[in-house]
């Protein structure tokens, strides 16, 4: 198991190299450079040359990338091209906000979606099921920014219960959290329903019922136990997206998270900052996938057995 985790973490290295190269090269190739904003009518040709030299613009792309990677290898994300402040500091001050939002979405979303999905699957074809399916389909079809704006319109402007955005206090946190939670809920309710449907008609459930296991335990242990994996995958990938900084929701609610910082960096053509933000988001995203994969082993004894069997095999080989 440890070997597997280490292998997956080492896999991050080539990913980071590729991702940083893709993003760095793309941003570098984008029309316009960082010094364009510093040049005015009065700037002399020598000044421009000096500026170009300062930002290594007179050297080839591969030189700038190499320099960037050399620093990155030492764990330094560099200084923002625009504000000359540390990219890492900016990321680390924004991260807690994004984490908070993602966790709230996770809690709200799964607390509603899992019971709702199970309920729909148990009453498949009935009115509860149709209502749930319709509800989730609409939720999935809703662009997040539009849902966010509708929530603002209703709860902030018409009812006046909560502020429309910002990060002042708990009340400002409610709407973005509910909005991200609803989006996560739509996907995971659907997945819970369909993976429960797959196991509900299985023989082992009939056996469990026949031997007198109470219905609650049948659903919770026997059915859900076998339906977890697709549900986890869906919740995990939704969470991954919002941890990488849900740029849209953070922008609509003026929430100072990682996603909005990335959008701002891209809009400002800040190569170093964009690169740093995207690399960090990618690391979080990949690590989360790893955690989800490890949770498979936690919820499914068959997968857990695979890990231990491998260990046994190795031992017997030695």
């Amino acid at each position, binding site marked *: 198991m440890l070997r597997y985790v280490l292998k997956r973490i080492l896999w991050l290295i*080539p*990913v980071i190299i*590729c*991702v940083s190269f*893709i*993003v760095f090269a*793309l*941003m570098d*190739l*984008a*029309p316009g450079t960082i010094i364009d904003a510093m040049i005015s009518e009065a700037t002399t040709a020598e000044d421009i040359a000096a500026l170009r030299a300062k930002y290594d613009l007179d050297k080839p792309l591969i030189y700038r990338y190499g320099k960037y990677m050399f620093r990155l290898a030492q764990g330094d994300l560099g200084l923002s091209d625009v504000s000359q402040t540390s990219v890492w500091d900016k990321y680390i001050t924004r991260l807690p906000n994004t984490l908070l939002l993602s966790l709230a979405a996770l809690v709200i979303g799964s607390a509603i979606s899992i019971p709702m999905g199970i309920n729909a699957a148990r009453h498949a074809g009935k009115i509860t099921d149709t209502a749930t399916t319709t509800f989730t*389909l*609409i939720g*999935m*079809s*809703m*662009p*997040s*920014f*539009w849902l966010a*704006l*509708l929530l*603002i*319109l209703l709860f902030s*402007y018409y009812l006046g219960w909560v502020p429309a955005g910002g990060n002042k206090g708990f009340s400002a946190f409610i709407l973005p959290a509910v909005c991200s939670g609803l989006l996560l809920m739509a996907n995971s309710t659907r997945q819970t329903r369909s993976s429960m449907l797959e196991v509900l008609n299985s023989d082992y459930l009939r056996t469990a019922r026949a031997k007198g296991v109470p219905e609650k335990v049948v659903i919770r242990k026997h059915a859900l136990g076998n339906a977890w994996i697709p549900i986890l995958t869906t919740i995990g990938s939704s969470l*991954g*997206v919002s941890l*990488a*900084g849900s*740029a*849209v929701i953070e*922008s*609509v609610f003026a929430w100072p998270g990682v996603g909005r910082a*990335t*959008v701002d960096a*891209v*809009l400002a*053509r800040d190569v170093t900052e*964009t690169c740093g*933000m*995207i690399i960090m*988001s*990618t690391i979080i*995203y*990949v690590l989360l*996938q790893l955690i989800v994969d490890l949770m498979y082993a936690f919820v499914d004894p068959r997968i857990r057995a695979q890990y231990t069997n491998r260990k046994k095999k190795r031992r017997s080989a030695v």
Partner: protein
Amino acid sequence: MSKIPNASETVPEAKQQKKRSRFGEIVHSIKRNKSAVAGLIIIALLLLILIGSLFIKYEAVTATSTANRFRTPDLEFPFGGDNMGRNVFLRTIYGSRYSLSIGFLAAAISTVLGVFLGSLAGYYGGLVDDIIMRASDVLASIPGMLLGMVIITVLGQSLQNLIIAVGVTGVPIFVRITRASVLTIKNQEYVEASRAIGMSHLRVIFTQVLPNGLSPIIVTFTSSLGLSIIVAASLSFLGFGVPVPKPEWGTLVSAGRNYIRTSPNLMSFPGLFIMITVLAFNLLGDGLRDALDPKLKK
């Protein structure tokens, strides 16, 4: 078939169903699926709207007038007038071409690239498989919206670049699904037989393997239509989309957002159109999944 007239009358019901071609069977199960029919009806309506919008002149949707600024919805301006007095109804109708073409073309780009790479990876295996899958993993590990923003920044803001950006971010899903599908088929006897009679590898892939593994690809294509529209609208909303004053739906919502307090109609109607369009594709996708998934067949 025409050689045996009235054959169907004498065949019992069960056998008759077997006689349907694969395509006929799919059409049949879609027809029985309420959500797929609902989806198809909405898509047909949207196509009608699209055809109708071809008669609207571009000047009519960009014409500004001070008299109609923030005009409240009425018969002539059913969705009201925006901050420059433009007719939001006409703009929304006209905008259907952007969202629909983005949806179809972006999903087509992801499908073509993803299916091509995925089938190579699945069919050849080994080093080819490793290279393609690792590259696809790298692409998939960059959060989609961020990648889309960066691609548009490089290429510049335009409709076609938005399509490319959204299309590229969708490639990894298709690579994985096609590969999985090809893997289950490539060892079947008829594939071996085609090789034995001297077909080239590429011909085997495209005439023997892929046509038999199309179902999951079709289902993914349908759901990626809706997803592409959402991603594209989100990019437009953030300011990375079709440049103003072209009335793309995401851009319309974004513009209406500033007047949400005074004229909520400006952002509600275009948003509603996005939702209904995506909903239609999702309904159709669900119906297709039921129709094509052999596990769900009764």
